[in-house]
């Protein structure tokens, strides 16, 4: 199970308005047969790790169920990863710090109660408060008053954030502590879903039997076997379901799911197992899927170690980057399941700029050697790459090391840690002395997510100890831009700074390699690696 331990950041999905219009509930794309909007399809899943509460799901098993049961203010168009309004009619701001939200009317929860401003505000307050133990609680840290409900230590002094104000049933305001021009993009994350009033009387019971406002409503949870949902007839979103519901079938291994898919006992799956990568396109024919994902694989460096701290070592890292033959490794060792990276932001993400890594992501052994020599060489002329042995990374780490060894003469070996947790403990505990594998899977499809959250000084996921005043300055400027587009452009400039310092070497972007059974059609995947759920058509 190569990616089992890698957390997938799942979010809402559906297809473009154009597809909705052309679909109209009957036949789908060209040459396909008729579909039955009342029939359900099955999807490969795994038992959720946590109760089904929106702010408590951060892994694929629970996340993909939650995102179908709930719908927040906005979500992302699965066809092009841009933001679109769902429960929100508009989100206005004049200063990128105070956001005025207007809700559409007519939305209801699955229990029939209307979706009001207070359903959002109360849910967010509840989720952010430490005592409610929600894993996604830090998502609310931009909001004013977060520190009161979520102090760094000790008990919260209050249970409401001062930045959230309900004006009336369809209006509320969000005030942030600083300017975040792209805050709207964050609002598409499932943690920002509304909760019905009935939630607060029994949160634990709700976690076993959730009531949402999304395109699908909860039917049953047969633990370890399946979660059954059905489409909600009063759903008011832009992407009403073209199928009768989703049955999430739990699988322990991708191999078992793939065997079921081939025999039509499973309709759509996440990702084919590595053992099937070479053959799945043959096995499935035009039912095979190969589409880009908003995720990247990097090799990071411990810039906090004296060996790597000197400014001249940036040249060594640039040289190492140029010594890696990305094209060959992705094609052979990774069997086309990845695409070579040319920037620190994954392709298919808003603000992605191809080639933002400059020449340093091009394979050039001569230049590589020269840069490494100019930078004073790799400490001890030996590089280790730390990785988790339970994630299927050994093959490519060995290949990268071979590439470096052959092209630069630097001795390079992999340094496997027994599992993901152990590798993470070594990396976050700053006990790693050589390079280490890192990756980033988008929380929301915007380049800021790949940059601000990873490379900013002191950012929670800045495993490198990287600190660049210039990068920070450009990021802050981008945050204060007056539109998302301007912010994305600003972050592209910040990204270019990473060329000079090379805190991490971009390797390749993830791809979704999946497929579907002969029972369904019109299956497309978004950049989160999720199918456009509501657009899947079950053959009549």
């Amino acid at each position, binding site marked *: 199970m190569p990616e089992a331990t890698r*957390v997938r950041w799942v979010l809402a999905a559906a297809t473009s308005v154009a597809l909705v219009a052309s679909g109209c509930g009957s036949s789908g794309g060209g040459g396909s047969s008729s579909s039955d909007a009342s029939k359900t399809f099955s999807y490969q899943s795994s038992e959720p790790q*946590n109760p089904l509460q929106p702010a408590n799901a951060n*892994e694929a098993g629970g996340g993909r169920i939650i995102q179908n049961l709930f719908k927040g203010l906005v979500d992302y168009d699965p066809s092009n990863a841009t933001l679109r309004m769902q429960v929100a009619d508009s989100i206005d701001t004049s200063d990128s710090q105070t956001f005025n939200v207007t809700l559409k009317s007519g939305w209801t929860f699955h229990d029939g109660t209307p979706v009001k401003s207070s359903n959002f505000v109360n849910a967010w307050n509840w989720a952010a408060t430490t005592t409610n133990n929600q894993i996604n609680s830090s998502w609310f840290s931009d909001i004013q008053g977060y520190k009161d409900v979520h102090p760094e230590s000790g008990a919260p002094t209050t249970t409401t954030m001062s930045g959230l104000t309900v004006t009336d049933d369809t209006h509320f305001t969000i005030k942030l502590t600083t300017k975040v021009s792209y805050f709207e993009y964050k609002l598409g994350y499932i943690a920002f879903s509304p909760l019905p009033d009935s939630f607060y009387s029994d949160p634990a019971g709700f976690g076993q039997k959730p009531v949402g406002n999304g395109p699908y409503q909860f039917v049953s949870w047969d633990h370890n076997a399946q979660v059954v949902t059905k489409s909600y007839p009063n759903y008011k979103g832009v992407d009403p379901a073209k199928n009768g519901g989703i049955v999430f079938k*739990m699988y*322990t291994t991708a191999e078992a799911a793939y*065997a079921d898919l081939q025999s039509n006992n499973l309709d759509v799956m996440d990702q084919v197992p590595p053992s099937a990568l070479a053959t799945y396109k043959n096995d499935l024919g035009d039912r095979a899927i190969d589409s880009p994902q908003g995720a990247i694989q990097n090799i990071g460096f411990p810039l906090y170690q004296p060996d790597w701290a000197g400014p001249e070592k940036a040249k060594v890292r640039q040289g190492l980057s140029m010594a890696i033959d990305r094209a060959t490794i992705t094609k052979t060792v990774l069997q086309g399941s990845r695409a070579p990276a040319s920037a620190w932001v994954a392709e298919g993400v808003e603000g992605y700029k191809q080639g933002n890594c400059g020449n340093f992501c091009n394979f050039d052994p001569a230049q590589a050697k020269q840069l490494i020599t100019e930078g004073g060489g790799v400490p001890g002329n030996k590089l280790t790459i730390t990785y988790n042995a339970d994630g299927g990374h050994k093959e490519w780490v060995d290949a990268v090391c071979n590439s470096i060894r052959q092209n630069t003469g630097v001795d390079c070996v992999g340094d496997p840690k027994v599992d993901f*947790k152990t590798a993470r*403990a070594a990396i976050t505990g700053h006990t790693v002395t050589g390079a280490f594998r890192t990756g980033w899977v988008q929380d929301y499809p915007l380049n800021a997510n790949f940059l601000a959250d990873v490379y900013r000084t002191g950012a929670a996921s800045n495993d490198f100890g990287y600190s660049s005043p210039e990068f920070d300055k450009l990021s802050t400027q981008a945050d204060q831009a007056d539109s998302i587009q301007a912010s994305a452009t600003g972050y592209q400039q910040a990204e270019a700074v990473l060329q000079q310092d090379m805190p991490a070497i971009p390797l390749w972007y993830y791809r979704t390699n999946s497929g579907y059974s002969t029972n369904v059609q019109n299956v497309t995947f978004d950049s989160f690696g999720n199918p456009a759920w509501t657009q899947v058509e079950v053959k009549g």
Partner: protein
Amino acid sequence: MGSYVLRRVLQMIPVFFGSTLLIFLMVYSLPGDPIVALFGDKAADPAQVAALRQKYYLDQPIWKQYLHYMGNLFQGDFGTSFTGRPVSEIMADAFPVTIRLALMAFVFELVVGLTLGVLSGLRRGSVVDTAVLILTLVVISIPVFVLAYIAQTIFATNLGWVTPTVQDSTDLSQLILPAIVLGSLSLAFVARLTRTSIGENLRADYIRTATAKGLPRRTIITRHLLRNSLIPVVTFLGTDLGALMGGAIVTEGIFNVQGIGNVLYRAINQKEGPTVVGIVTVLVIVYLVASLLVDLLYAVLDPRIRYA
């Protein structure tokens, strides 16, 4: 006999405490922090981590955690998993599935294994004997997961007789294939044990005496030969029942059976202490009861073996 049973039951108490303590210590000393792992790839929020640790009683020293766990256990509380479900409920869902699977595998290996063993033991050197020897050798030398994939490919993908994985774990007919795969390794052992045991006893004095007395061959085999030959086989079968339940992890994974093996695998991965300790504790009890039954069966099979 009665005092023997009592003594054996009393012996189970220290074994129970010892094994739960060991499992507890092992699970909780695994590297990595289960709470931090809940946050996955993302940086864990320290304030929330502290709050969650307190919720799951993980901020206490290990001996306090054990006492806390045992204290709850004796009130019938196996603790709660991260999904918010009581562990007792999880086990109540998963154990019946695995027990059914293990029992089916057990019956399969018992019936087929004994039959093959008796047939080949009585006709040593015959074609049947050679065939059984070769067949069992092949099964013993192939790992269970290879066997499972072969069975899946042949019977599901190629022939289409069954679905590749079990669609409904409560449906007995769907469990037949996984049960056969699960029981096949033990079957080979049972067949070979029976064969050797019968072969030895055939040359024993009491069989010669029985034959000389002119007893019918049928009576000799069933009343004298089998009864004595089964003692080593019963020993094996007794411990095997426990092994089948624990060994179902691989088979259940491949056939996607929602039994105890599947739950245990996931719980170990997530370092869910209460779930792992709870399941293994029950498995330990299964082992203890099974070996107790074996010892009692000895006395039934061979009156010379007396425990007083």
